[in-house]
């Protein structure tokens, strides 16, 4: 990346990035009509089956506002430290003609958005710190229809997506590197999932990102020519596309070539951006207040009620895990990345397990079992074993009443069955044997059976020690306390030497 490493005769440039995110809100019905946002469970998503005269833009229809969609944007605003507007909020028509827009305008917000003026603290691990990113606004609008280009001179339209509540979140031009852009996207995704505002799935299209990038000579305070990059299907694409643009701008600026303000699309396969069109001015959208909707004035009480509903956010939870529970930054990160996993972990600790040990189990064996069933969409809140059961099992390992190996086997079984781990240990006789007398007899028996190996060990072939331990464990079906076996075997071998 020339811009960041430029030295010598070349000018040093500062990267300026702003991000726009569109997220489909998690509502059951559409924004301005009551059509369902998703097909019934277990049904295929057939095109043009979740539509009505309103979302198809038929003449004479009138929109009505989905209360939950308004709430989810306000919740997001609160999570992003925004001011939530209570005086006057307005929907406006954004006018443009395109086959994905049945009415010829999108109902959006422009002059008076629901929430504005916030900020988000974004950890940027690759840069070893965090940056505070200004949030310009989070507003409410409606999604467009899905247009597929058939490649035969025509396109086809599916209106199922038309009118799904969509939230647009815009940052200030505060990001200074492609890595920060990516970190912002990931941090925002986690928050949207935490508060239940959106599934925020880039691949499924419920979260879409556009990056606005420009360069300016270091120390300059005017912005350079800005390019908007679309068609980013992953956070990795976002980072790569920003890197590509930074290099392209730096090169053009060095050569004294003019840059055009335009929209470019990211081509993932080719690893480059391609011009899509010249950027329109906001004027061209001829925004004006939506005459079909009465004004919205969210009450202070409504906002206060939503504030009270706001769950602990990922950053606060990570902080609590590190400072109060003493977890490593890594474990805290793994746990908080998945809200259901974090909730399960909290419940295990709540049930009395030591925080660090519980973290090892939840991020280790428990997550391994969870990942095995990730394809079925299993989340931690759908695991049959109650958090209290895992806490019980952890306590049994800590007290030495079950070996670590057997405990994993018990977890593997109770994870899906929901049985009590202690009951399974009892029923299957998996409890750890800590009876020194019994272990002594088993060690004795092994020494008597494998006399030649014992002789070899004593003559210096010490690697046979592991074999002998294994034989004792085999005789006790893996239940013997390994520490006691070790002590006893060493003592007897050294005795006879």
């Amino acid at each position, binding site marked *: 990346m020339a811009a960041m490493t430029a030295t010598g005769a070349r000018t040093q440039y500062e990267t300026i990035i702003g991000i726009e995110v569109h997220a489909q809100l998690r*509502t*059951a*019905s559409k924004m301005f009509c*009551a*059509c*369902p*946002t998703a097909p019934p469970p277990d049904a295929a998503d*057939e*095109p*043009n*089956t*979740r*539509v*009505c*005269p309103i979302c*198809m833009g038929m003449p004479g229809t009138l929109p*009505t*506002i*989905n*209360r*939950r*969609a*308004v709430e989810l944007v306000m919740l997001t605003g609160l999570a992003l430290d925004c001011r939530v507007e209570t005086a006057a909020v*307005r929907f406006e028509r954004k*006018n*443009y*003609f*395109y*086959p*994905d*827009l049945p009415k010829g305008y999108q109902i959006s917000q422009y002059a008076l958005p629901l929430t504005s003026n916030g900020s988000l603290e974004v950890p940027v691990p690759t840069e070893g710190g965090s940056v505070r990113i200004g949030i310009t606004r989070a507003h409410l609008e409606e999604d*467009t229809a899905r*247009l*597929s*280009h*058939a490649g035969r*001179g*025509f*396109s*086809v*339209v*599916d*209106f199922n997506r038309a009118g799904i509540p969509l939230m647009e979140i815009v940052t200030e031009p505060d990001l200074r590197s492609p890595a920060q852009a990516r970190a912002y996207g990931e941090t925002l995704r986690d928050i949207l999932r935490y508060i239940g505002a959106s599934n925020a799935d880039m691949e499924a299209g419920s979260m879409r990102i556009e990056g606005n990038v420009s360069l300016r000579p270091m120390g300059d305070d005017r912005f350079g020519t800005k390019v908007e990059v*679309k068609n980013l299907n992953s956070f990795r694409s976002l980072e790569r596309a920003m890197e590509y643009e930074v290099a392209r701008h730096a090169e053009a600026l060095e050569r004294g070539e003019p840059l055009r303000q335009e*929209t470019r*699309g990211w081509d993932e396969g080719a690893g480059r951006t391609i011009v*899509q*069109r010249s950027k329109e001015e906001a004027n*061209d959208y*001829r925004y004006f*207040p939506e*005459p079909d*909707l*009465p*004004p*919205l*004035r*969210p*009450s202070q009480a409504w906002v206060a009620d939503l504030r009270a509903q706001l769950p602990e956010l990922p950053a606060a939870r990570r902080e609590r895990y590190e400072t109060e529970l003493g977890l490593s930054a890594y474990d805290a990160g793994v746990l908080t990345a998945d809200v259901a996993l974090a909730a399960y972990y909290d419940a295990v600790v709540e049930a009395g397990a030591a925080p660090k040990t519980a973290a090892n189990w939840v991020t280790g064996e428990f997550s391994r079992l969870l990942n095995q069933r990730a394809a079925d969409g299993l989340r931690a809140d759908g695991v049959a074993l109650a958090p209290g059961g895992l806490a019980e099992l952890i306590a049994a390992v800590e007290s030495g009443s079950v070996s670590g190996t057997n405990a994993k086997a018990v977890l593997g079984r109770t994870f899906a069955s929901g049985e009590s781990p202690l009951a399974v240990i009892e029923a299957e006789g998996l409890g750890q044997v800590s009876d020194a007398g019994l272990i002594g007899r088993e060690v004795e028996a092994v020494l008597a059976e494998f006399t030649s190996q014992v002789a070899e060990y004593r003559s210096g072939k010490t690697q046979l020690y592991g074999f002998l331990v294994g034989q004792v464990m085999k005789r006790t079906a893996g239940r013997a306390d390994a520490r006691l076996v070790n002590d006893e075997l060493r003592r007897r071998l050294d005795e006879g030497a």
Partner: protein
Amino acid sequence: MISRETVEHVAALARLGLTEAEIDLMQTQLSHILETIERLRDVDTSSVDPTASVIALENVLRDDVPRAPISRRAALANAPLREGDHLRVPTILEEGR
């Protein structure tokens, strides 16, 4: 008088193809409309709040409860062109928005 360029720009945004004669006509007519609207500036509105809506209601919200959509057959009944279960439209290469 608004410029020819403005007329052409507005026509392009509305996806209207105008002949030279129509551009002349629109230039005159749109200018007259704007001049008429200009006259509203003469009214003293210093004591009137900005008004975006004359509906005497606010906070009219709908609960997030889905209702049955219309049938696909009904949804596509008025489409001039169909392609299977979809509406068929001309491909526009410039990306939207």
